[in-house]
């Protein structure tokens, strides 16, 4: 059978999605994947929910890819001691269904329910959300607010990077090309957890603003989509921790965030809503 693709090529038409520039190999094990990223400088691909959007848009450059989706050892959620360990290939659906997440980090389930729709939740991974390094990544404020630790592995080493040190700028991180994210670890969280995402609609929307907060002995608050990376509002936290008023905290927050105008929203809107969300967090978690 002559395929439509070949027919289209014969007629000199461009097929909609060009895969000719892609070279994809599959990793059968973590050791295999680590060797490949070291020796062949391949970009890991898992749920593909970001990379294949770029492919379909024509913005994914000819690439060497390594498919790590099949490495089952990187899947799953466990508790070790008092630490929640989330494997890099854990999907949003896995997080939504996990009793460990429900008990220890329920705001991660809240965030996961608002990523895309079920089709995306079934495929997108927590490790991919972290590695993709979008300032709008929905799970990132959750991990920033609870001071998570990203576990990076290479052929020769394993290191644990505190979330606050992970991102270095817009879509950049300390992760080396020869490393893979294997897990994210979250120590026991004391206090009320709170998550909100503001988008054009509930499902299938990229965040205009996304926020996660923990109201414990000292409040911890992280915002997405208001700066080049996910950010902790540390000065704002200090104002609240030292008994300052919510108005003072709101004024401080204005100085801490640096939102921009883009196709999803405006800087002015993001500033206003960020403050409104801070006030809502503070009142919802009171008592």
């Amino acid at each position: 059978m002559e395929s439509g693709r070949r027919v289209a090529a014969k007629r000199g038409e461009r097929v909609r999605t060009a895969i000719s520039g892609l070279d994809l190999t599959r990793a059968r094990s973590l050791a295999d994947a680590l060797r490949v990223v070291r020796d062949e400088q391949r970009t890991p691909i898992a749920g593909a929910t970001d990379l294949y959007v770029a492919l379909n848009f024509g913005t994914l450059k000819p690439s060497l890819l390594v498919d790590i989706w099949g490495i089952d050892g990187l899947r799953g959620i466990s508790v070790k001691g008092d630490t929640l360990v989330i494997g890099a290939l854990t999907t949003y659906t896995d997080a939504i269904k996990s009793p460990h997440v429900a008990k220890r980090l329920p705001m991660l389930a809240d965030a996961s329910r608002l990523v895309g729709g079920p089709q995306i939740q079934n495929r997108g991974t927590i490790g991919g959300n972290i590695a993709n390094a979008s300032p709008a990544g929905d799970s990132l404020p959750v991990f920033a607010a609870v001071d998570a630790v990203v576990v990076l592995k290479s052929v020769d080493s394993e290191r644990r990077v505190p979330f606050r040190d992970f991102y270095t700028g817009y879509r950049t991180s300390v992760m080396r090309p020869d490393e893979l994210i294997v897990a994210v670890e979250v120590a026991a969280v004391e206090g009320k957890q709170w998550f909100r995402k503001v988008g054009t609609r509930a499902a299938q929307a990229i965040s205009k603003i996304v926020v996660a907060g923990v109201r414990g002995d000292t409040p911890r608050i992280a915002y997405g989509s208001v700066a080049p990376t996910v950010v902790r509002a540390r000065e704002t936290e200090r104002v609240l921790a030292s008994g300052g008023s919510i108005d003072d905290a709101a004024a401080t927050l204005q100085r801490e965030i640096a939102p921009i105008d883009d196709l999803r929203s405006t800087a002015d809107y993001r500033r206003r809503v960020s403050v409104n969300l801070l006030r809502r967090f503070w009142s919802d978690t009171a008592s």
Partner: protein
Amino acid sequence: MRFALNGHEEDVDAHPAARLLDVLRVECGLTGTKEGCGEGECGACTVLIDGAPVCSCLVPFSQVEHAHVITIEGLGDDHPLQHRFMDEVGAQCGICTPGMIMAALVLGKNPTLDDVKTALAGNLCRCTGYGAIYRAVLKWKAGDESPPSVESE
């Protein structure tokens, strides 16, 4: 590469980075699965992989090796949910319909309207209107408690 398609073993020679959507439509000739947005937003290309709805426009073909893929063709032409869509006029232009049906198949027993809306949150319709679609799904679940059937060997 071998995978199960609608209950039958298939061995398809395609680029490992090809979109599952293209493999299904072009290599396998199953054009019931539609391409809408091509960015995982509209759900028109929804198929089930090992029982879970996914956007086939975002799945590299390499990832379905040894998996079980079910497309709208796997339901045959006489599935009760298809009849409900017809009865309730749940399809107008029809582009979103196969994806809507595939996404709805995984609903549990006695879903509420909210459950249906959540299950179909990843599927956009631009002409029929959601009312008829939700009604078709709810009537199917209310009237037919048999598990979703697919053709198998």
